[in-house]
């Protein structure tokens, strides 16, 4: 068992990676519609999900999802659910991997081919995702702590920059009266659902107190609003929808005159790539752990077969998904994910209820 702070790291990495990655672009699709109200609704939903999840999980200290479901649900349902989660986590990783490859190709090494960048990333990710869960968490702590000063710089620059047009931000807020829509809601809620790796790591992390939940909720709220509003301040409410990498263009628009380098984008990129790869490692590690829980015969070999399939599917995804379609895929994925998160909550609730009844009788 290790410290409770790792819960916050899990929430943090999910929130930042999603905020820097795709969430703003999906939300900007409805910026003249229900995005702002979706964000507010998502904040409420997200906080509710965080609290509910933890209340259920605290009834099963030190147990992972497989142990929780065992005996309460039929075996086929348990396996199906684990396989579903395996694929979900895997896909989550693949999307970020593919988008990271595109980003590195665009910004860092335009002369290098996609294939080589992809192979280098895969070599890192495959071997690290097979580490022990404890090691992954320690690695996570390290990766997550490093970029905090850069984020603070960016927030500070935003607050003091006179090139920010605050009227654009206010204009974005005037659309608050529109009804929320599902895809924006799903995208915004994603910031708060960083707790899902706990299905795996519940064994490692001690039960989490209420204080941590509040910190995580407030942090998610803060990240969600900053990731939506800061680019609008720089790029304008109309222009923001045209960008492919919204946050990178935004940081590239900031001029740090007295900083080490003029273009902070490269410092940010360095950390962003690191943190995203860490997230992919975390996702694939979770996938492998789900596979372990399913326990199909001869456990050790199956891992390598799975890795092989992982690689083939990832390469196929890399080959077939291009820059314009990745956002569409991601929107589908997030829509599915919100539904699956709610299903997960129902399963946990049911399990906890059965557990209580068993306890009483």
């Amino acid at each position: 068992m290790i410290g409770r702070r790792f819960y916050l790291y899990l929430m943090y990495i999910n929130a930042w990676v999603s905020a820097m990655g795709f969430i703003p672009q999906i939300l900007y699709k409805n910026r003249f519609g229900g995005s702002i109200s979706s964000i507010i609704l998502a904040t409420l939903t997200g906080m509710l999900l965080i609290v509910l999840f933890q209340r259920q999980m605290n009834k099963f200290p030190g147990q992972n999802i497989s142990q929780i479901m065992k005996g309460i649900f039929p075996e086929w349902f348990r396996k199906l659910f684990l396989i579903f989660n395996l694929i979900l986590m895997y896909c989550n990783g693949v999307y970020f991997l593919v988008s990271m490859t595109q980003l590195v190709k665009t910004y860092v090494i335009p002369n290098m081919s996609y294939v080589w960048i992809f192979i280098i990333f895969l070599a890192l990710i495959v071997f690290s995702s097979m580490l022990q869960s404890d090691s992954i968490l320690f690695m996570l702590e390290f990766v997550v702590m490093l970029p905090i000063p850069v984020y603070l710089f960016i927030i500070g620059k935003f607050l003091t920059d006179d090139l920010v047009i605050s009227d654009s931000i206010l204009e974005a807020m005037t659309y608050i009266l529109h009804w929320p829509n599902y895809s924006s809601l799903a995208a915004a809620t994603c910031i708060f659902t960083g707790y899902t790796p706990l299905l795996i790591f519940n064994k490692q992390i001690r039960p989490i107190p209420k204080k941590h939940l509040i910190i995580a909720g407030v942090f998610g709220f803060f990240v969600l609003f900053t990731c939506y509003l800061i680019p609008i301040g720089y790029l304008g409410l109309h222009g923001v929808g045209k960008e492919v990498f919204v946050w990178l263009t935004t940081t590239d628009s900031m001029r740090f005159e007295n900083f080490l380098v003029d273009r902070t984008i490269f410092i940010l990129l360095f950390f962003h790539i690191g943190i995203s790869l860490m997230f992919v490692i975390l996702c694939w590690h979770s996938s492998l752990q789900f596979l372990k829980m399913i326990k199909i015969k001869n456990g050790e070999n199956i891992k390598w077969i799975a890795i092989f399939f992982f690689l083939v599917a990832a390469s196929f995804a890399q080959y077939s998904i291009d820059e314009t379609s990745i956002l569409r895929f991601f929107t589908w994925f997030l829509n599915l994910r919100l539904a699956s998160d709610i299903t997960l909550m129902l399963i946990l609730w049911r399990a906890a209820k059965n557990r209580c009844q068993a306890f009483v009788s």
Partner: protein
Amino acid sequence: MPSFCIVALVLFLMIVLLPGCAYKPIDKRAFITAIGIDESNTPGKELKIILKISLSKGDPKTTGGSFTLLTLDANSISTAISLLKSRTDKELVYGHIKAILIGENVAKKDIRPLLDFFMRNPSIHKASYLSVAKPTAYEVLQFNPPEEQVTGSFVSSLFTTTGSESPYIKEVTLFDAYRRVTEAGIDIAMPVIEANEKNLQVDKIALFNKKNIQMALTPEESQIFRLLTKGIHTGHIRLKTNDGTYDVDIANGKTKFKLKQGQEETLAVFRINLNGYISEKMEYQETLSEKILRELEMQAENKIQVDVKHLLQKIQKKELDPIGFGLRYRSRHLNPNKDELKWNDIYPQLEFQVAPECKIKGTEMID
């Protein structure tokens, strides 16, 4: 044993990947510090692209940057850039571009395709400075100031706050210009660089609509424009009283504006705060009395009020909106899409109310 194999494999991969890959060494690269776009003289070609390439040796002690200019006529910037690759032995690097100069004739046509190219290209810094070059971008880029340390830094340091801070310049960066093109209710204002025989001069601001240049402001108007938008720290006005002529340095000037709904018309209310010092007086006098200072403040307020109103009405007549009244209006009303139509009717009738508050704080070292 298997772990040894893994380590060996990873090490092998690293060794294979380390030697440079697609990287090009630094001595095979040419760093472009400024880019200019002019109208082409060649028939059949629309644009003339000028790249200013730095030949600096990287020694900070020497001044006077040496450079070379690459020019090419083509119909688009991309074509020119790909053709230029065959005219140089080095890889052209666009990441260090600090200034983008648009020739006056190009600015009169359409600047949107240019902005599109620069925003699309990931290697170009989105905070690089844009300006209109007069008479042509080539002449501005060709100018070699002897005090310049790094090629192209002269033009960019005119606009930064770390270098000289002129009250006549309201700088515009690339992302800012693009945002003003896309955003409804705000237009571009861009400084104009003029190449004279011996120096470069930046004291005018050109106003654009969404597409091209519409009007140019005089230096005095440019100063007022900067006061209305960014605020000034180093301004200067000249006042005449019964006692003689005085020059006043403006140490700090800031403006806030509000849109107010009057009974029939919409009002734009400007609150301008100025404070300054007397820097020069033309006629000899014993001492400056308190009374004269108050009178000067009154004079300054009147002058600012007249000048600001005049400038705002001049801009309004051309139906330009570089200050962003439209955006302010949209941001203060729910459901802006419906209001947009109304704003186009409101703006020509917009009334301006200017309330300057001027404070002359002192007389510097002598009374």
